[in-house]
């Protein structure tokens, strides 16, 4: 996918997402299922350099934090914890919109090492949207306690994106995580995510649509992903494309009414 110039991205983030970034900062979107220790990862990476707000027009909370690594400033944007990116709820829509239209340099997906079968689902969906993905397999300490081992190497090979094992509560694996984020953000590592194959009928439809979509999208989004969304009957995507991608005369953002799921956290 084409990258935006740094200046344009700063403007985009400010106008459409109410996020103040600087030109030098690399932007990292932080996605993950609830209860994966995503917030712990967020806190461990950014420490006290955080501030919170709301997504424009939504009552979904939004936290951003900054950190430096190898002299490179990063802006970490914490997305709502979701199980998927099919926009069933406002949370899912917020997360999807930022990954898709906020043009982050990297999307960091946090998964629970003890529940990969459920968690990878989100990672696979993110990988359909963007190549710039780093996977963080968190709660390795809990997995160890439960006698679960995860083949990190193997997972990285299968998925085609960098994978880092962490135990964020114990601050383990964080520097490697930052290394990988740096590599992908700086273009030193270019992930090539696994392409999920669907049934014959679906694949054929994707093929036909991709040809038509590619020239219109001009490299702003993956044509395959847009084709899939059209096929699964996602009605919100086109509205969002208009909202986030079209010219300046459009209203900054429409007000959303729906709001955030949040488990009464223990």
């Amino acid at each position, binding site marked *: 996918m084409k990258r935006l110039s740094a200046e344009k991205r700063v403007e985009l983030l400010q106008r459409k997402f109410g996020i103040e970034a600087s030109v030098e900062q690399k932007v990292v979107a932080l996605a993950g299922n609830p209860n994966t220790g995503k917030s712990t990862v967020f806190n461990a990476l950014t420490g006290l350099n955080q501030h919170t707000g709301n997504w424009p027009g939504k009552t979904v909370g939004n936290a951003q934090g900054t950190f430096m690594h190898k002299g490179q400033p990063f802006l970490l944007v914490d997305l709502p914890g979701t199980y998927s990116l099919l926009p069933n709820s406002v949370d899912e829509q917020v997360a999807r919109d930022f990954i898709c239209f906020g043009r982050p340099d990297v999307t960091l997906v946090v998964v629970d090492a003890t529940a990969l079968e459920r968690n990878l689902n989100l990672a696979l969906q993110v990988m359909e949207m963007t190549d710039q993905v780093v996977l963080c397999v968190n709660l390795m300490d809990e997995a160890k306690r439960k006698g679960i081992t995860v083949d990190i190497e193997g997972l990285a090979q299968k998925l085609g994106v960098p994978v880092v094992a962490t135990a964020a509560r114990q601050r383990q694996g964080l520097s490697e995580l930052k290394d990988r984020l740096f590599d992908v953000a700086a273009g030193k590592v270019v992930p090539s995510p696994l392409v999920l194959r*669907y049934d014959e009928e679906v694949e054929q439809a994707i093929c036909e649509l991709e040809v038509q979509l590619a020239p219109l999208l001009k490299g702003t989004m993956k044509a395959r992903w847009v084709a899939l969304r059209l096929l699964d009957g996602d009605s919100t995507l086109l509205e969002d494309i208009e909202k986030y991608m079209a010219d300046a005369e459009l209203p900054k953002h429409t007000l959303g009414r729906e709001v955030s799921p949040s*488990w*009464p956290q223990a």
Partner: protein
Amino acid sequence: MAASIEREDIHRLHAIARQVRTEYKKPMRDGIVEKIYQHSQSIAEEVTSRSERRRIDWDGRLDAILTSRYFGFPIMLALLGAVFWVTIAGANVPSGLLADGFGWLEGKLTDLFMWAGAPAWLHGILVLGLYRGVSWVVSVMLPPMAIFFPLFALLEDFGYLPRVAFNLDRLFKKAGGHGKQSLTMAMGFGCNAAGIISCRIIESPRERMIAILTNNFVPCNGRWPTLILLSSLFLAGAVGIGANVTAAALIVVGMVLFGIMMTLFVSWALSKTMLRGVPSHFTLELPPYRKPQFGRTIVRSVYDKTLFVLKRAVITAAPAGIVIWLLANITVGDQHVLDHIAGWLTPFAHAIGLDGYILMAFLLGLPANEIVVPILIMGYMASGAMVELDDMNALKTLFLEHGWTWLTALNVMLFSLLHYPCGTTIYTIAKETKSVKWTVLAALIPLSIAVAVCFIVAQVVRYFGWV
């Protein structure tokens, strides 16, 4: 702007989408989603291995018991009962001590006023109105809250509340609500306004409305003290540990159960009438159990909840104390204003097993449920029966002197449990639903149920001559 897609291209995209919709009548969503899940599962299986010598899966075992079909509910009730037992048994002594302390100080204050030659009305407003009101609130409400909230927070911290939701999930679906309504109800135990906000987690508007309209039926922080206080005063005697305390705890558990039943019943009724529909499907994930962080949880719950509720009560009770004192001391005709109002409310109040002062306390207590009992106490004290505030029995005596029986106590508890939500909650409902109609219904439905239930209880009890 970083416009990357031209206007006309967006029109073309729409055209393609239309074409897809006509070409593939049935969206392929299910197939696509299922495929992702399959991949996710197979990749996970390939890269994960579980050691042969598998550690015991404590979470799984615990869940098997705590959420079991047979033990789930009994354990839930037992835990709830235990929490109330500890609260009721533990609150008496410190409550007595606090009341003693405040009573002693009141004597000293009165001495001070006399020594300074202050006029009687000033002493009346400041000491008998303001000071007494506040000291009653503190000594009656602080100890139970300081015990109950930390205990509840520990259960929450341990991860038990999601299991409660899981147990109740089935019932809510049967009642035509959303399974997540059990979560919003659990939030309501803390604060109904927060419970209403948490209804946002329910996506379907129909089911969210049901959850909003019924959130009021579980007792919130502001109402726990009323329930605990009255059940321990009238069913456990003012002092003592043993069978009485157990009875009082059981009564509170019964109240909670009754509230949950009412929640289910009203949800069911709504889903058969005004909000018809089929419950939607969802997955509830049970987070792992965690060892509670005792120190932090206790400190936090004392600061965040206990002191917060107490502060709200004191802030609203202090001016209310003055107002009530004034009402009780300004005479119109041959009676005090307070007695006029109470007298005017009495016929209706009597029919539902309450009295005029109680009804007035509920009306004046609209801003915050915490202040209903304090207002009531002040009302009674101002209306002539002066009580020494030296021990908890005095409170019971005060109530008895105003003709209370166990029926009165029971109906106050029932009315408190069921009546309209507090001002803050109503405001929140208005903001969340953006509808006057539903906001009014959210207050009227509980109110009519409260009146009906209290009326039936009062009439039945009186008919059989049980009081």
